[in-house]
């Protein structure tokens, strides 16, 4: 059996352990949250060095891909380098394959028409592939990177503008503490902000912690959809209580459980016995085919809302 640990800056309340079959290999996956404590996460990764087959980094990105450029986040890189003998990944490479595949599936099989849909994408610099695929599907997308990550009330109105601003700011934004909620902030009640942008869209897309942080009430959100990575039962209850209709999650369900892309990419590295830099697009598409990947579609007006995430 292979052993993988996902070290997350997110809440320890989401800690989890699961064993799954991946590409004919049994993989034990453990998620450990460090409640926003970067130093504790660093020590944990250093302790895991050489003890497990792969490590995933959750709750932060190491790499951002904007308009063909790769930017490296300083905090993330430091964590990535804390385990020099063990392959360590942040899931961003898998995300570049997985999320476009999810959007294409929703375009072809989803319950709402994407062509012409107004979408608020809370941040796109961390998931540029999703942004490109939503626009290719005909969505009218407003990007909230400056709003949700820096508090600047400026909606970015297209990929061209996002790329232009990204070229100016991404390198600096990767070096500064952003307003990304970690630890206990992920469990704090939403404080509604940017309500006009939420109100103007039919679907909110992107990182769930950012979506949740400023989520308005039922009067603004009723009937809308959310497209995000992974959610917990409490998250789904919150969305249902605020009247949202659909929840689309991009992270795959394996053995009835949802896994973050960092955990899954680490499991792939362990199962294939490859170094992260040797993983190819074919490896990722092969994995998605092997697990018959499709996003999860939940009708939040139905009584049950699925499973816990890792």
């Amino acid at each position, binding site marked *: 059996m292979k052993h993988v640990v996902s070290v997350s800056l997110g809440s320890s309340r989401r800690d989890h352990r699961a064993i799954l079959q991946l590409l004919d290999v049994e993989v034990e996956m453990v998620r450990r949250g460090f409640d926003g404590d970067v130093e504790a996460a660093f020590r944990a990764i250093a302790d895991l060095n050489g003890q497990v087959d792969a490590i995933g980094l959750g709750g932060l990105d190491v790499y951002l891909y904007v308009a063909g450029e790769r930017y490296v986040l300083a905090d993330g890189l430091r964590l990535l380098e804390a385990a020099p003998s063990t392959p360590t990944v942040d899931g961003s490479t898998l995300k570049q394959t997985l999320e476009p595949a999810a959007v294409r599936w929703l375009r072809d099989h989803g319950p709402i028409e994407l062509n012409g849909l107004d979408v608020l994408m809370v941040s796109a610099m961390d998931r540029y592939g999703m942004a490109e695929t939503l626009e290719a599907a005909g969505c009218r997308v407003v990007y909230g990177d400056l709003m949700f990550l820096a508090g600047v009330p400026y909606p970015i109105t297209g990929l061209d503008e996002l790329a232009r601003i990204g070229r100016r*700011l991404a390198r600096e934004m990767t070096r500064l503490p952003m307003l990304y909620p970690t630890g206990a902030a992920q469990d704090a009640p939403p404080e509604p902000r940017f309500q006009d942008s939420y109100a103007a869209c039919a679907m909110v897309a992107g990182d769930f912690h950012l979506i949740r942080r400023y989520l308005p009430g039922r009067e603004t959100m009723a009937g809308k959809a959310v497209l995000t990575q992974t959610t917990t039962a409490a998250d789904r209850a919150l969305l249902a209580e605020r009247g949202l209709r659909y929840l689309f999650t991009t992270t795959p369900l394996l053995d009835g459980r949802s896994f973050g892309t960092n955990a899954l990419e680490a499991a792939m590295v362990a199962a294939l016995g490859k170094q992260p830099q040797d993983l190819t697009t074919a490896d990722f598409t092969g994995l998605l085919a092997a697990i018959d990947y499709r996003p999860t579609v939940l009708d939040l007006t139905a009584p049950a809302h699925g499973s816990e995430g890792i």
Partner: protein
Amino acid sequence: MVDSREMDRVLTDFASRFNAKPELAKMTAGWERTITIEPSDAAWRRDLRVERGLVRTLEQVPEKAEIRLVGRSSVLADIFAGRLSPTEPYLDGDLVVHSSEEDMMKLDIFTLMVWGE
């Protein structure tokens, strides 16, 4: 060391570039702040006011400033002249920013937007 006259030229140029960018007016909508620029190696100080999407220098010393930037005069001048990103000296400890974290981030972003490509 940068003298006050050179800093005045830098700030005048910074304000005119800032005020010529309509997207900065939108980004700073509702963000009204006084910024004090305080060199650690010179006796002068300067104050900027961001209001209604525009930047102007203040003639009189304000009662309070929400943001205070402290560093060597050459570092402060280089930041407002676009020769140095604020992040670099901030991380090196050559620039001290007294403000909320969110204000610090916004000021950084607005400065980069003035001088970016």
